[in-house]
């Protein structure tokens, strides 16, 4: 029984990591700019498609027709030569194999630019407008982003292979002194969890230990006063929006081997991550992270057959149910500050 529970706990971690990362970005945007960003799921999706794009670039081939050889059907044989291997040799093969982690290099600048363009282009005009209009305009942006991706990459999911080394499962039970094959866990999920930990730690360290982060935190607490001190807080907040989209994008990139990216994956995650943000408390960064993991793990427990036997369908609604209860009983969320968006 203990093994089963522990296994469900582990299973919840990877979904929880994704929720936590997306919710972290959402909260960063809400805490700094006060904008309710319905396009955040689309940023997650754009990040995932950065990985797709990177892999397509890395696997570009030259096709030459070799007339001397014939295929089994008697047609001249096509010789495909991967370009990257031709240029970089063995390193090219490594690039293709590790295309998902390597695409982070592409994702960071792309997402930073996309985020800053979003903020400067549209969202900046909506600071003073009501939340309902912010929701509407970002919802529209999300539709636009997802339709652009659909028209470029098509409507079908594009599976992304994980690096060969990360295929298969790790026997975690042995590490903990249990018998072999009791608790096995796919390596890539473990990687995703660790990656999420690094990103979350990085964001918190950035806010806590750098001068830039200090100014941003001060701006979150009292924007006006920071502005009066002669600091261009708007520009810093713009950069924070870029950072939030990078976080969402990275969450998307590393999630691709677990879920083949399609154009509407952002919307699927967005609703859940909004719920996560609300459960954690609007504007609370630790709350968002904690609620992300909490809800991921709860969802995983709810999908156990023993639990489903007691309450049928609980796995489908558990997250929403928690959100409804939290909103009705404690609207500022688990770790929200008193008075922030409390209505």
């Amino acid at each position, binding site marked *: 029984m203990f093994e089963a529970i522990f296994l469900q706990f582990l299973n919840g971690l990877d979904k929880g990591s994704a929720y936590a990362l997306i919710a972290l970005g959402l909260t960063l945007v809400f805490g700094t700019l006060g904008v309710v960003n319905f396009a955040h799921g689309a940023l997650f999706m754009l990040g995932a498609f950065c990985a797709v794009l990177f892999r397509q670039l890395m696997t570009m081939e030259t096709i030459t027709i070799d007339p001397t050889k014939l295929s089994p059907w008697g047609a001249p044989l096509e010789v495909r030569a991967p370009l990257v291997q031709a240029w970089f040799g063995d390193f090219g093969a490594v690039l293709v194999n590790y295309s998902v982690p390597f695409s982070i290099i592409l994702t960071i600048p792309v997402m930073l630019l996309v985020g800053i363009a979003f903020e400067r282009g549209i969202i900046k005009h909506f600071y003073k407008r*009501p939340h309902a209009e912010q929701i*509407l305009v970002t919802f529209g942006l999300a539709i636009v982003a997802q*339709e652009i991706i659909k028209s470029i990459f098509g409507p079908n999911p594009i599976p992304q292979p994980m690096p060969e080394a990360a295929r298969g499962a790790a026997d975690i039970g042995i590490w903990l002194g249990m018998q072999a094959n009791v608790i096995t866990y796919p390596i890539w999920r473990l990687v995703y969890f660790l990656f999420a930990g690094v990103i979350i730690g990085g964001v918190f360290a950035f806010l806590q230990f750098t001068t830039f982060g200090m100014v941003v935190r001060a701006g979150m607490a009292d924007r006006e006063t920071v502005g009066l001190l002669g600091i261009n807080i708007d520009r810093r907040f713009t950069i924070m929006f870029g950072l939030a989209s990078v976080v969402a994008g990275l969450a998307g990139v590393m999630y691709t081997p677990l879920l083949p990216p399609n154009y509407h994956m952002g919307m699927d995650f967005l609703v859940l991550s909004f719920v996560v943000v609300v459960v954690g408390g609007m504007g609370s960064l630790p709350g968002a992270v904690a609620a992300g993991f909490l809800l991921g793990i709860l969802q995983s427990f709810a999908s156990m057959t023993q639990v489903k036997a007691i309450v049928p*369908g609980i796995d*489908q609604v558990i997250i*929403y149910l928690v*959100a409804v209860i939290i909103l*009705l009983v404690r609207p500022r969320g688990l770790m929200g500050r008193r008075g922030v*968006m409390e209505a």
Partner: protein
Amino acid sequence: MLAMPRKDLILFLGFAAAVLAMPIWLQPFGAAYPDLLNRFAIFAIFAVGFNILFGLTGYLSFGHAAFFGVGSYAAVWSFKLLSMDAVPALLFAVIISGLFALAIGFLSLRRSGIYFSILTLAFAQMSYNLAYSVFTPITNGETGLQLSLNDKRYLDRMFFEAGAGLPSPTLFGVTLSGYVAFYFCAFFLIATFFIAQRVTGSPFGMMLKGIKSNQTRMNYTGVNTRPYTLAAFVISGMYAGLAGALLAITDPLAGAERMQWTASGEVVLMTILGGAGTLVGPVIGAWLIKYFENIFSAINDGILSQFWGFLPEGAQHTAVLISSKFVGEGWFLTLGLVFVLIVVFLPGGVMEGVRRIASMIRPNKPTPASADSSATKPHPAE
């Protein structure tokens, strides 16, 4: 009805005439076929009802598709269990969706602003997920609820024997198909528009507008706003249920995807596009979206190259390539772009555009309606 102010009466009569004459004046646009006209009427009802909650009261619900879906299911169940007549189906659907809205509204309206949106969203997603999984005996899961040959139809059986083949929905014996179905839907559109108009002009409607402009002040004046918001929520839920039932009557089939949150998003788009808070706006928004959904998605490369035929060869090819991204499969991209532009530049929707043009033509006469354009309205209870 005779007690209506003259302006309202003219608006109502004009609207009724426009709706009834739709098969005629939509002819040049290529939209005058019953199937599309039905959708025009049905989604207009949905949007008019949504506007009572969002436009008048200021509560942005992201879960209205749940009531729409419940209305569809209820209507199909009435076909299966009671009778193929449309009247019990409509009654059943409106009552069930009203009760459903009462339950959800009672809980959701404890919060306002973004929390209200997320609560309704959560409830709608719960219903959607449950309709797909546990409630399969009621909803028939992914396949969708359909009529079948061995349905009970107790009321019908009392009077006559079952015929061979699947029956289709009727109204007192008249089969509802083609233009009969459209005029049936059109009747309800006109009736619901009339009710919405009366609600807007009534003291109750004034109360709702007061809640939208400043709920806190309303509370401090000693008004308990909860019953008013709940009533608005239930009314708009019943409108959604009615629309869902009408969709099931014109096509006896109900699927869970009607309850998904993107469907809720669509009615929000319609209302905003046309102009939230106005009476005619949501109707226009619904018509525009349904029209372009049908027309834009039918355009293919052949039509495009004809359209760009006046350009030289190379330019024509490029123009077709670029514009093909915005039509056919990609019409949603056009919708998204238009929607973003509307929210940014014309928050009052098409109706505000009309008003601006009207005031440009008559510059010295400020229209009284522009005073309550939704652009300047503050959010409820913030």
